[in-house]
């Protein structure tokens, strides 16, 4: 027998040997031991996690000599036959090569016959996602009510391509990606039994590169062994796996942070010369950025970052020099070119240009930040001392001044709450009486003036004024005023322009009212014919209209 690669040699033969899929193994064994074997199973999961192996073990366990038993003996005739894949009752079909409806028809013909030697006839259909639509459909009836001797086991990497009508007829198991620790453990076992000297650190790197697939890890280990023989040096691993390594990536990120495009490109040339795999490089860079982001935001980064001490401290130092937003930008840039790297005939150029873009990142002010800044200005104005607030207004824009306080002074004296508060309360009462009216008033009107005799309401739109004028509505408003203030007022409706013209009168008195600064904004705005939005802008930025 010629040499077999590790992945084949170490293909698990018992449920115990299946790595990292305890949830499935347990279920299948229990199903056998309590005699509840389903007639159709679907195993799904990414490559190299044990789907086909589990299917084969399961088939042996069911057809083992002493009747279905939780663990196959691997010694009886039936097990031996299945192991050598010459059993007549366990048939493994390559779904990707037999995709047509004719293949399924053939299958349906053959399933009718009882098993030759054992209790069950088991069909393992691998890569089942490649069956054509009509092939799947031709299978439905058989799959739903198969003869009692029949068991189907489907295996696939692409669950999304399997129709739901198939799914609903199967017991379906999702195989997990295998954890790094499990992979390392298994690799270690293999290395030990084959007499290979390899450090735990190297195994960790291999398991990392394998991305949760045990077969990938085993292929890589094979590759490493066939290059370095029985003794594997730590230093060889990164280059053998085609990885750039933490140091180099750290340098690259350094250059990006320093905006040193020139140095970055020179460094990148080195990477290319070394024959670095571009996509792997990109992925390593992404991972580095991920670590950097975590170092930036996490309180206990050690927990989440799987790095050696010195690398981690380097990373932490670097994290101080970069903002989270920039990390996000860099990461996104890499993410966007991922597809191009896959398909472009010149991936190295694509990555190079992306690196240039990354090294020329200009921090963009986030909308949130801008908003925050704006609102802090706004707030500052409200809480600032009166003189500070009045100053810009006086200096610049006539209308933004805190002048027209006159009416409210009387309110204060009479013990009522100040202007806007009263208005709010009146509106609240209106709401209690007539909801629709309130909504007009809240959005379309403002109180212009309130004194012992008159309440002037400014309307932003003519139609609102018309609405309020109706007898019914005026009555409601009067009632509300009476309830709130304890005494009736004359209600005067006017358009906002008219109102602001009227406001010119109390000017010059401002000095006296400075202490009553706070609730100024609303009336202030009405003062001029300048568009409202400009007025607001002027207020927010303490500006001047030139």
């Amino acid at each position, binding site marked *: 027998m010629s040499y077999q690669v590790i992945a084949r040699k170490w293909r698990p033969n018992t449920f115990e040997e299946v790595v990292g899929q305890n949830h499935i193994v347990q279920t299948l064994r229990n199903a056998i031991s309590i005699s509840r074997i389903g007639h159709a199973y679907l195993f799904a999961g990414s490559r190299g996690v044990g789907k086909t192996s589990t299917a084969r073990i399961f088939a042996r366990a069911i057809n083992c000599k002493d009747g279905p038993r939780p663990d196959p003996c691997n010694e009886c005739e039936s097990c031996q036959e299945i192991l050598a894949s010459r059993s007549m009752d366990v048939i493994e079909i390559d779904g990707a090569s037999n995709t047509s409806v004719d293949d399924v028809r053939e299958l349906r013909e053959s399933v009718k016959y009882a098993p030759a030697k054992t209790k069950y006839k088991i069909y393992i259909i691998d890569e089942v996602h490649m069956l054509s639509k009509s092939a799947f459909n031709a299978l439905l009836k058989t799959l739903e009510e198969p003869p009692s001797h029949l068991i189907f086991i489907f295996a696939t990497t692409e669950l999304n391509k399997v129709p739901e009508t198939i799914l609903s007829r199967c017991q379906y198991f999702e195989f997990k990606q295998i954890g790094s620790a499990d992979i390392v453990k298994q690799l270690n076992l293999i290395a030990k039994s084959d007499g290979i000297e390899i450090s735990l650190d190297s195994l960790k790197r291999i398991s990392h590169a394998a991305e949760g697939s045990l077969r990938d890890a085993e292929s890589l280990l094979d590759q490493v062994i066939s290059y370095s023989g029985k003794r594997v040096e730590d230093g060889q691993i990164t280059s053998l796996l085609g990885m750039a390594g933490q140091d180099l990536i750290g340098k690259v990120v350094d250059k990006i942070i320093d905006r040193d495009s020139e140095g970055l490109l020179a460094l990148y040339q080195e990477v290319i010369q070394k024959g670095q795999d571009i996509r792997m490089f990109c992925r390593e860079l992404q991972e580095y950025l991920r670590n950097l982001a975590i170092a930036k935001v996490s309180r206990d980064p050690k927990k989440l970052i799987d790095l050696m001490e010195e690398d981690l401290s380097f990373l932490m130092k670097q994290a101080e020099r970069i903002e989270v937003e920039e990390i996000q930008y860099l990461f996104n840039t890499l993410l966007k070119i991922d597809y191009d790297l896959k398909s472009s005939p*010149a991936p190295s150029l694509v990555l190079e*240009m992306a690196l240039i873009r990354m090294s020329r990142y200009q921090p963009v002010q986030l909308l949130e930040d801008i908003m925050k800044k704006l609102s802090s200005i706004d707030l500052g104005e409200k809480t600032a001392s009166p003189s500070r607030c009045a100053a810009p207004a006086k200096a610049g824009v006539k209308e933004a001044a805190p002048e027209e306080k006159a009416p409210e002074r009387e309110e204060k004296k009479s013990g009522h709450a100040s202007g806007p508060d009263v208005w709010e309360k009146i509106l609240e009462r209106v709401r209690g009486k007539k909801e629709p009216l309130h909504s007009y008033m809240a959005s379309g009107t403002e109180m212009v003036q309130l004194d012992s005799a008159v309440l002037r309401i400014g309307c932003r739109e003519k139609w609102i004024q018309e609405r309020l004028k109706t007898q019914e509505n005026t009555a409601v408003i009067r009632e509300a005023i009476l309830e709130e203030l304890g005494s009736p007022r004359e209600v005067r409706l006017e358009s906002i322009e008219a109102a602001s013209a009227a406001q010119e009168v109390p000017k010059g008195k401002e000095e006296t009212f400075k202490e009553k600064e706070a609730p100024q904004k609303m009336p202030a705005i009405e003062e001029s014919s300048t568009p409202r939005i400009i007025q607001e802008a002027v207020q927010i930025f303490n500006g001047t209209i030139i």
Partner: protein
Amino acid sequence: MSFKNIFGHERQTELLQRAIISGNVSHAYLFHGPEGVGKKLAACTLAQALNCERRDGDSCGQCRSCRNILKGTHPDVLFVQPEEGYIRIEEIRAVQKMLGYRAFEGGWKIAIMEGCDEMSIGAANSFLKTLEEPPDRTTIILICSNYNSLLPTIFSRCQRIRFNPLHGGRIQDILIKVKGAPLEAACAMASLADGSLGRAFSIDLQEAIKLRNEAFDLILESGGRDVVDLFALGKKISGMKEELKGLLCWMLTLARDLAVTKITGERGLVKNKDLLPKIEALAKKFSHEALQGMFESINGALASIQRHANPQLTMDHLLISLTARGRTLKN
């Protein structure tokens, strides 16, 4: 041809040789790396070495078996290439059938599949089972330039061996030594070859430079083009078929050179060294953003062509966007 005669891949060949000597030959290899660096040569040599009558872990190149493999007439060594841009399921079936028989000559059965990144999805999937567990004394060698476009299920089943681009100086040396090229031409060819010895050998220098200059003109004149000319030009270019991809690749390197020059001014980083003065002059005219945009448009067009999009529409679109960009520059 002996493993010793494969230039620039000492580590890779050593790995293969060691595998043969220690009997650890994997049932599936994936040789990946840029075009024309020696992947097929290495695969061929591996096939020869496995079947060589001398059985010393290398290929003698003299015995009947070695010669037959080189000629492609060995009954146990099958070469597969994409036809009309694809490897189809039929070809995979042929491989499976051939691997199903015992070796005629009692040695190893070997399938060498070039351009396997062009396998159709169906073909790739139908190959999985064979690739995972082929018969004894069989090895399947997949060759591709970009293994990332393979299904993960394919490359997870192979031992992957990366072939690096060759160093420019190295190519130059080889050209002088093997082809007897004059120094100057060798230098230009080495820089055009961009790490690929195969390209360096196959390059008709005149032709390549002509194509490259055409690409340069496309970029140079992008601003001053009339819309009517533009469509005529698009039609002409898209008629180039095989060369179209090459042209776009050249445009890509030129756009990259322009951007690199713009940013660093470092002459050593420029790939098209013979065009340096022109590139430097042109780089001044564009803003960095414009160059990034240009690169992106060309890259987009290349990706579309790669995906078998309509060449004329793609080229029209590219020319329009280049022209628009050139126009804004002028204004």
